[in-house]
């Protein structure tokens, strides 16, 4: 979709092993399209929020990771779209949590590796969003889930930190766990609760209103 400006010199780079000539204002995704690289299957939002366009990037001797839709074509770089990460190994469902007092114990069962962080900083170096992943993991391991979750606020689920973690802590999932458990146990907004209570006493009867959505008043034990 990019319009050529024409007056910039082109750059030569390598994408997935294919030589590509591109304009420097193009992102790696656009350069791949323009350069006839076989179809890129890992790109979606093109604005850095879906985390799917994970690439490995080589400049000289230095190799790093990035998101392709936020990385621009550069003379001489080599890039490679990484395959999607494998499914997470840590299993839990929020509905299994009956009691807010044993979150930390359950967390340790679910993420037993989390307190084995060896402080290699791999996760931090990997994160395209500049998140203090390592500190977030430490907060979660210390049971400070609200703060841990806040650290992961801009996480885009690219899971580059998971791939980078030698202890297989799955930091991205630790972050998401922290955010989710915080909402699940601690988000109890009075204005919402009040309106739900009003609707329970007097269900909404708009024109032709069907039965309210079943299950929206299911019992919960927290």
């Amino acid at each position, binding site marked *: 979709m990019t319009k050529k400006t024409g007056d910039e010199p082109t750059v030569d780079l390598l994408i997935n092993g294919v030589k590509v000539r591109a304009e420097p204002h193009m992102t790696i995704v656009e350069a791949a399209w323009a350069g006839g690289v076989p*179809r890129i299957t890992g790109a979606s939002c093109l604005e850095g929020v879906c985390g799917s366009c994970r690439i490995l990037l080589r400049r000289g001797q230095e190799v790093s990771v990035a998101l392709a839709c936020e990385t621009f074509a550069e003379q001489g770089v080599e890039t490679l779209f990484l395959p*999607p990460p494998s499914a997470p190994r840590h299993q839990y469902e929020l509905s299994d949590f009956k009691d807010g007092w044993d979150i930390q114990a359950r967390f340790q069962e679910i993420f037993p590796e989390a307190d084995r962080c060896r402080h290699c900083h791999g996760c931090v170096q990997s994160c395209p969003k500049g998140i203090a992943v390592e500190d977030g993991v430490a907060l979660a391991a210390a049971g400070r889930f609200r703060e841990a979750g806040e650290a992961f606020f*801009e996480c885009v689920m690219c899971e580059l930190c998971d791939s980078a973690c030698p202890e297989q802590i799955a930091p991205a999932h630790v972050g998401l766990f922290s955010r989710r458990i915080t909402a699940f146990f601690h988000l109890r*907004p009075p*204005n919402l609760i009040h309106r739900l209570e009003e609707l329970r006493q007097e269900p909404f009867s708009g024109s032709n209103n069907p039965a309210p959505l079943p299950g929206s008043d299911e019992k919960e034990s927290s």
Partner: protein
Amino acid sequence: MTRGLSLQAALAAYRVDAELAPLPQPLEPDALLNAFHPDHLRDGIATLAVGPNAGARCPRELADLLQAEAYIDEVDLAGVEVTDTDVLVIGGGGAGSAAALAAAERGARVLLATKMRLGDSNTVMAEGGIQAAIEPDDSVQQHLQDTLRAGHHAGNPALVAAMVGDGPGVIRWLIRQGMQFDQTASGDLHTRRAGGISAPRIVHCRDYTGLEMMRALREAVIQHRGIEVWDQAPAVELLSNENGRKCVGAVLGSLDGQKLRIVRARSVILATGGIGRLHLHGFPTSNHLGATGDGLVLAYRIGARLCDLDSFQYHPTGLVNPPYLSGKLVTEGIRAAGALLLNAEGHRFIDELQPRDIVSAAIIRECREGRGIHPDTGGVGVWLDTARLERGQPGLIEQQFPKLLARSRIAGIDPRRDPVLVYPTLHYQNGGAVIDVDGATTVPGLYAAGEVAGGIHGHNRIMGNALLEIISFGRRAGMAAAISSHDRGPKKITLEHVNQARRALTLAGLPLTRRAPQIMPDYTAPGKDFQIAANPRSKS
């Protein structure tokens, strides 16, 4: 569009503290829409010749796909591996995830197949928020009225009532899935106003509402024991029973040349999202790469009625510059927070909080009448005056719109210092598959939820109603599909509907050369149409 100012000249002329003239007398809304809204363009519109909506008008780009040949026929299915499930959900955005979770909560075995990776969607990109009438000075009734009015009373009141009534319960359900929302100091959910709504009603998570929603739902789906997820498995066709009238599953392809797979299901839920990547009338889009209207094509071919195919939303504030972000959104939340729109002459020209279709038409008018700003990378736009907003409320952009800032930083722009160039961008498909309050389409066994479904937003959607719709109807469809999947399962799986559609195309004298659904935009692999790689056969 030759007159107007260059970007440099406009930037040089811009003064953050310039005195603003009062708004001119507004044009009558209908006249403005008629003259300037893209839905009212006379060129590039076709009339459908076949299918349940024969006779209806819609943009040519869409008509071409709705009246295209399928990728596959029976010979392609010989020997293909078959997987059985109770509920097949097609699409891994918000609607698909909500449907899968709801069906699984009801004990159904669920398979969720998505085109790219679970979460790659329009949902993840939503910024502004989700509507739910929860404030004391608001009511579900007001929400109903606002929605119908903004949609020019073309929405189905029963569907709208169902959705707005679900609103507060949807927020609670989302919290139970682990989604966070912004709160006030006293712990209430923070609400925002937006164009076309009568009370503060948009709840949000800063300007990352969709990301936060998708993160929580994605994790919930991945972690759910009753849901299996197939990534990189786009549906290329539905399956029907012997007479082609009931949906009994789908054929899944792949983006990188793997084999076809057949899924036989008791119910199928389409949750494939929107059509932005069809670039109707050549517009840029805010949508993700997979928004190619596949669900509409699949539903139409199997005989489901669609509605409002001539009505699309062009979001007023798509970025123009830098080119790689062209069409990407600046959230409406920023206008709700007080940012103004200015033309090349530095004048306001519209009440910024009017409904989106009107604001978009007004911007198009400014540009067409020579009051636009032209960057030398192409395109045209008007100012969204973020710098003035920052001056009036220092720190606001950083606190409430971190996504805007993060994105600008990469592009080397500072919206706190300079205004941002914007132009309408193809954003949302107002219509879609006709559904009832259970999300059932007009074809038995086939449900639709989310942007692919129609009937709620009429001819214009107000901010925050899409995210509400996907959860409300996603869950409704999921639950209904789980219940109806107690039926005995399908016996025979055929492509009878494909045969019927082909006959209709031939009878109408339409070519069989074009194939659909599109799956990926052409420009992602120029010259290489999407192919069913396992079956490379040429067909005359």
